[in-house]
């Protein structure tokens, strides 16, 4: 049986006891999937998985607190589930995790860059093991999956769901690489270059808060300090400084909690490379606290605790 069939039968077994199971279905065109809320066996027919199933469905979990629900997760998404459980934001017993062994998802911006015409003109998509055959505006091209793989997948260390009540598929190996060239290139720039980059990039931001609301760990949502008038952290003015301030709010509230699922960057309608900030913060967290959020149950986020003697924080000479 295929991975999809296995998943369907596993969901079918548990559906009766659950409010719903969150998976994916085909979206508005052949190149896009969209979240699917499975309530009946008939809904199961629409379930899809694969490289287009990009959404981190753990984002929806907190909205169902107190109800028993199922969720289909990739390796990266499972880290978000773990972090939510560790922070007591969801109850482990209320969630049935259908874990996938994932061989990577695509990056839509990379597909867009590789196609001969706008992906909006897509006519059909055939997904093979290592390639995607895409017909767009009458032309058919074959893209190697490795060329259009999302950045997070290129350095993925957890392709198989870390926690799962049912684990579906054959286990995949972690990626060999653990750092991205684009990240290193950016970090090597001078302060002035980096500042200019963020000034320019943040001038494109429309502060729609898609990055915030797509984030599985941003659980305040309706009560976010970004939209509060008292205290007033942010002006409604969408100047680069205010937009950057919001990103700083996001990054600092995610410090030691970010599971690097990349949803913020994926959700951004104007393609701001937000993961440059997130990955950098996560690297610092790892360096100072040897912590990677959502990689094991019963971890405490490093900023929720302290040590009297910090091994890796050194006093500066004054």
């Amino acid at each position, binding site marked *: 049986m295929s991975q999809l069939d296995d998943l369907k039968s596993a969901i079918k077994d548990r559906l009766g006891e659950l409010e719903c199971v969150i998976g994916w279905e085909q979206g*508005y065109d052949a190149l896009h999937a969209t979240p699917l*809320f499975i309530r009946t066996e008939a809904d199961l027919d629409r379930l899809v998985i694969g490289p287009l199933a990009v959404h981190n469905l753990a984002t929806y979990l907190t909205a169902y607190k107190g109800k028993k629900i199922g969720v289909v997760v990739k390796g990266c998404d499972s880290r978000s589930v773990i972090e939510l459980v560790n922070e007591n934001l969801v109850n482990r017993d209320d969630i049935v995790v259908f874990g996938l062994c994932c061989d990577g998802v695509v990056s839509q911006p990379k597909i*867009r*860059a590789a196609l001969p015409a706008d992906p909006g003109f897509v006519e059909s998509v055939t997904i093979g093991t290592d390639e995607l055959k895409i017909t767009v505006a009458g032309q058919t091209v074959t893209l190697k999956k490795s060329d259009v793989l999302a950045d997070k997948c290129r350095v993925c260390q957890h392709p198989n769901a870390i926690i799962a009540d049912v684990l579906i598929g054959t286990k995949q190996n972690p990626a060999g690489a653990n750092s991205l060239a684009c990240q290193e290139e950016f970090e090597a720039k001078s302060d002035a270059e980096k500042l200019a980059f963020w000034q320019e990039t943040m001038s494109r931001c429309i502060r729609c808060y898609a990055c915030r609301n*797509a984030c599985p760990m941003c659980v305040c949502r*309706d009560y976010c300090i970004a939209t509060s008038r008292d205290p007033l952290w942010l002006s409604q003015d969408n100047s680069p400084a205010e937009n950057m301030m919001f990103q700083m709010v996001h990054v600092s509230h995610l410090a030691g909690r970010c599971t690097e699922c990349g949803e913020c960057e*994926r959700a951004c*309608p104007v393609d701001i490379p937000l993961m440059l900030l997130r990955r950098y913060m996560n690297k610092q967290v790892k360096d100072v606290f040897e912590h990677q959020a959502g990689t094991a149950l019963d971890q405490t986020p490093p900023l929720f605790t302290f040590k009297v003697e910090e091994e890796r924080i050194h006093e500066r000479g004054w």
Partner: protein
Amino acid sequence: MERYITKQNLTRLAEDLAKTCRVLAPVSSCGSVTFRRFQPGMTMDLHSRMAAVSPKAATFPQTETLLVVKRDATEKKPELVETLPQGKSVVIGCRPCGARGKLIFNPVYETDKIKDPYFISRRDNTVFISLACDRPETTCFCHSVGSGPADTAGSDILLTLVGDGYVARSVTPAGDEIMKLALFEDAGDKGKEADAKNAEARELMGEAHDYTSAPAKLLARFDDMDFWQAQSAKCISCGACTYMCPTCYCFNITDDDLGLNSRRIRTWDNCMSHTFTLEGSGHNPRSTKAHRLKNRVGHKFSYYPDLHKGVIACCGCGRCIKQCPAGVDIRQIVNAAQEYSE
């Protein structure tokens, strides 16, 4: 008036216009196409794809300074400075749907009783040079909301790609004025080719969906929260759809205080946000995303048409579908209401 302009000359036109007015054109940066203030040296990205954000900001900027308050440490009385927008703007290379969006504002921002000077001033001083579409994207449905890939409503000049340039048709005196410039040449019989291309693009869109029953059918679902909860399940309640929409016109007004100076600004607001309807008492009549999505869809396809001669407050550009992080499809929601049977 019908004339022709080469691609090269269109760039020169943009450069020339930029000397005297604010030119907004689609520019690609970081792989994202957005409308930017154009200046010589920039490359307009007219064809790779439709701009992610609509050209709405030309007539309705995300942040509009309504007035400035200046205080002097020594003087007691603050000075109020009015900031009505000045100068002319030209938008080059938007799609017909983007230019048409501002027409939805008119019955709201300019009535017998209420006139919004900021919007009206910007609208009356902005020329839209639109580019007709060759073929529809999977998210396009302008033909279903009373428009089409070569619609001139809201535009001053409509360009259609023919050969290595564009057939330009002006539909307003402001458009005529620009097309008198020497950069434009005689169109010859290229007009026929443009007609054929426009017709072909319309053909490719297929049959239009009939939204006639939508206002009544959506209203019939008004109290059916089960329906709206199911429709909004995947919505993450961000503001991407509203901020990118050419027709969304809601705003917020806040005072920004910094030191001795402060200003009153009007910024885009978004009905998908919890704070949009949050009342001073703490009560929120639209407390869940289901309530909020109901409002967004209902407003565009039911309440607005009921108030304004049946006009749907949507220009069919599909940005809200394409850019939604969760893939919420407004067409599907309206269809579901239209096809709903008890």
